[in-house]
């Protein structure tokens, strides 16, 4: 399933990503969060898997592919 882009949303791949006229990269309240996954075993397998999955996702727009929403 894909979301319809918001009326005032510019494509995320543009140089300036805006929503309702605000540049999301510059909003203080939009500061980043960090999620850490800690592993006990060698993570090289995970790294390779991650690279593969990212390349696969690049085939379609990342943000618009939201098929987890029922």
């Amino acid at each position, binding site marked *: 399933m894909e*979301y319809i882009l*918001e009326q005032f949303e510019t494509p*995320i*791949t543009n140089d300036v*990503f805006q*929503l*309702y006229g*605000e540049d*999301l*990269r*510059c*909003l*203080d*309240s*939009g*500061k*980043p*969060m*960090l*999620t*850490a*996954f*800690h*592993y*006990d*075993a*060698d*993570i*090289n*397998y*995970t*790294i390779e*898997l*991650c*690279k593969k*999955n*990212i*390349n696969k*996702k*690049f085939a379609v727009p*990342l*943000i618009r592919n*939201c098929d*987890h*929403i*029922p």
Partner: protein
Amino acid sequence: MKLGDIFEVTDETDIHKIFNAFDRRKYLYRIYASTKSQFVCIIWSHAILDGITAQYGSYIMLGKNVVTNIPIEHPPSFIRGFYAVDTFFKLSEFLCNSQLQKNLDVPDFQTMCLSINEIKRVSKQNKVSFPATACAMYLSRIFDALPESVSFLKVFISVYIKNSNRFNNYSIIPIIVQRCKCSPLDINTSISKNKTMLFGFYELFRTSLLTNVKSQIDTLKPDVIFASMKNNDEIGDAKLNRILVYNYTSSAKIYACGIQTGADNFYINSSIRVANVSLSTPLKI
């Protein structure tokens, strides 16, 4: 867009140094894999992704089985207005002055681990929900770590609510928790009493932009934001040990996010902006 725009392998072992070096004007989502310290950290903009969507994207990237979260459905439209008005008046209860001082610019991050089996046992015994029990256990530790003069906490419990876009798929249930009334049953009762506020809160503060909601929450000055995230017990070949969420810029004085790892570990990572709060040594109860 190429792989290097979103993914980086690093020798850095300090998560916070990675975060500090992250250029948020350049990136909205970026994955760092530390080969020396065996962790993958994902930095993502809360302006464009909420926690559920970020979790989903992270699992896809890391090859983990995704978790199905079922959002709460909205009530019929004619009731929504009533909930909004009702919530508006109830919010006055949360305008009271906080007993905590937000005096750390950079949060102190502390991790604790609860036993999922124990949380389930207590939940069953008291006939209350899993998040209510986890929240009660967590807040008990927080009260223990705070001076006796702190008699109550304004706690916002985040909930997953249906939304037509990818932003803002959450609302909150605000509760006031007294130090002497912090049992799972007490928390569950408070949640039940205020549960319609999640609809009212959504109606009052909804916007397509998550950041606006966050700024509105800030005016209510929560002491604690507590999020209990659903997960599966898959640890995979790399033996996933724990998943921790760090919130460097929370509007709350204490932000806590709990998430299952493995069969019995419920890790709660706290981002604490109150000085001299020392949670007990990470252990299971």
